[in-house]
């Protein structure tokens, strides 16, 4: 074990790519703090100052109507369900406006897979957001929503990307990846397609000059090999176009979901720190790793800054998906600045593409 640790350390410091055997050591065997210390060392090689970035953002939803029936989701309702809702374009823009008024520079808009919504609905939201709130970056629609829009409109998903680009969109959120392993996706989201359903959209988006994030929702039915499949897929795609800005893992929140009864041990802060540190080391071509105060707790977020993370995520003025799983957490810009400082780092506000807007 000690020997593997030394080998991984030497490879990492020499800038050599880690293989799956090394990845197994990171995810399973490495003593947590040895792993964290190495991830932290690499973080400071990449970002030499103590800067930790955050974004002022909001995470509203336009519909909870969805036909995909993912077992981990507490948010969606089937079409026709009494609790199903869909916002009009104006209602969505009112949410963007309220985020903009609160200082948001990013709005991460996502929703269910609603078969009733035409392409124009999406394009109008993008255009009107850019026209009325030029200070806001429309960070809209995850890969599976783009696949849905394509099916509903009878277009190829690449056409949908082209149309979104024409409308002015330049970034995509990374949600909907879950764990990019055929086995896991078949088990928890059989109607969403295999890993390629997500990867293809990001590949084609990157080819068109979009930036996006890569996420991972772990802590359900995945095993170590599934996580390594996910890491390998992200790293290989990043080699192609370099379009991922950050890797953002978070733990599954089981309440009110079909998957709940299968969860024996909730993945807590130690599992999270291990995932972050491992991803920092394995994903050698992804520039940023995000500490998710939102899903893991503010204290775990602060600790994560010592385990290789260099970004604090966003303010998330509005959030409904975790809320549906009875998980609620809120924060202000002042509190973010305080938390980052207290942890011994220098806060800096960034935009969607991780460019610094303001240093504190």
């Amino acid at each position, binding site marked *: 074990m000690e020997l593997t640790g030394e080998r991984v350390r030497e490879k990492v410091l020499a800038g050599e790519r880690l293989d799956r055997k090394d990845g197994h050591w990171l995810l399973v065997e490495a003593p947590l*703090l*040895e792993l964290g210390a190495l991830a932290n060392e690499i973080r400071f090689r990449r970002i030499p100052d103590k800067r930790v970035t955050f974004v002022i953002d909001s995470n509203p939803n336009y519909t909870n109507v969805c036909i995909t029936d993912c077992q981990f989701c507490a948010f969606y309702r089937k079409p026709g369900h009494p609790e199903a809702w869909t916002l009009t374009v104006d209602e969505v823009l009112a949410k963007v406006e309220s985020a903009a008024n609160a200082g948001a520079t990013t709005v991460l808009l996502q929703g269910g897979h609603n078969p009733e919504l035409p392409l124009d609905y999406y394009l109008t939201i993008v255009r009107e957001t850019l026209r009325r709130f030029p200070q806001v970056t429309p960070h809209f629609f995850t890969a599976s929503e783009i696949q849905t829009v394509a099916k509903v409109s009878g277009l190829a998903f690449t056409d949908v990307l082209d149309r979104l680009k024409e409308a002015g969109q330049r970034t995509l959120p990374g949600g909907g990846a879950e764990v990019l392993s055929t086995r896991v996706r078949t088990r928890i989201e059989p109607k969403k397609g295999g890993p390629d359903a997500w990867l293809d959209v990001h590949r084609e988006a990157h080819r068109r000059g979009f930036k996006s994030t890569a996420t991972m929702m772990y802590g359900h039915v995945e095993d170590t090999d599934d996580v390594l499949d996910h890491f390998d897929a992200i790293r290989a795609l990043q080699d192609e176009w370099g379009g991922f800005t950050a890797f953002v893992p978070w733990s599954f929140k089981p309440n009110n979901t079909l998957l709940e009864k299968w969860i024996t041990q909730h993945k807590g802060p*130690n599992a999270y720190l291990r995932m972050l540190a491992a991803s920092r080391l394995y994903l050698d071509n992804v520039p940023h790793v995000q500490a998710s105060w939102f899903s893991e707790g503010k204290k775990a977020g602060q600790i994560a800054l010592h385990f290789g993370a260099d970004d604090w995520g966003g303010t998330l003025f509005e959030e409904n998906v975790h809320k549906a799983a009875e998980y609620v957490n809120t924060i202000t810009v002042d509190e973010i600045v305080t938390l980052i400082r207290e942890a011994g780092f220098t806060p800096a506000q960034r935009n969607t593409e991780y460019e610094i807007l303001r240093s504190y």
Partner: protein
Amino acid sequence: MHLADKKLEPIWDKVRHEVRLERDDALALFETDDLLGVGRMADHVKTRREGDRVYFVINRHITPTNLCVLSCSFCGFARKPGQAGAYEHTIEDMVAMVKDETREVHIVGGHHPDWPFEYYERMIEAIHQAHPDVQIKAFTAAEIDYFWRRWKIEPREALTRLKAAGLRSMPGGGAEIFSARLAKLLKYTGKADPERWCEIHGIAHSLGIKTNATMLYGHVERLDERVDHMVRLREQQDRSGGFVTFVPLAYQEAATRLVPRQTPPADSLRTIAIGRLMLDNFAHVEAYWVTLGEETASVALHFGADDVNGTLEDERIQHLSGAKTPAGVAREQLFRMIRDAGKIPVERDALYNVVKVWN
């Protein structure tokens, strides 16, 4: 071990070779940016001593009264007679609070203006008689000292009588921070001073009563005052040997506003780690999850802590219990914290006898 801060290397040499750390070493550990380096050294010591074991106890806290003659600045709990929220439990109430599945009952309260020493003696006796298998851990050195101040009962006599009544061990509270500067600043000069606190623990140890030691940090103390505190505890342990566990207590900011926020988790992790490294003659170091929060306590199990305290049953947990026993629910919460860290939960009693290894 590859340490990011090379200044820690001589300290690591000492730790590896089990050489006692000095005051300056502790200060260097507090001042370095290499938080995980400090943690790794402490984890090395913890693992050498305990492997992957992490202890917990099914316990119950009882606070007989919040009436207190003192006015310590950091305390949000104490009340004066007649003040709203003041209470006094009867002995019958307290006996009824203890359930048979409880292994340890922890009794600490205010310095009551009038209760005679005999009331405390009867309290211990009644709980012990009703629940002979429950180990009673009661009264801080500050309270024992108060029995002298108020009733002129010498600590040796008080502890001898309490032991005869059924007391098994003493909690480590009332130590606060061993500093004359802070005692004056935070108005706890009316309390057992460091010499007296240590003297009383020494007497307890000589009577065969095991005790714990706390340190209240994260308020207005300086880092060198934390180090002094640890050094004093270590010296007392060299003399009397009866301390079992070091319990660093993160100051709870909400109560009294000495500071606007609780000290950040990195400071707590570091303080626990330095406690493990400095207190080489203490068997255990605790991550007290109630004040740290579950997340930090769980991570602290990689920073030298080998104990998370206990289930701290109270009415709320009992109310939420449903079909399961209250202890069962609380146990699962502790298992989650311990297992997330990849450690093995070991249920103990107040004296660290192993009740069950929960593999």
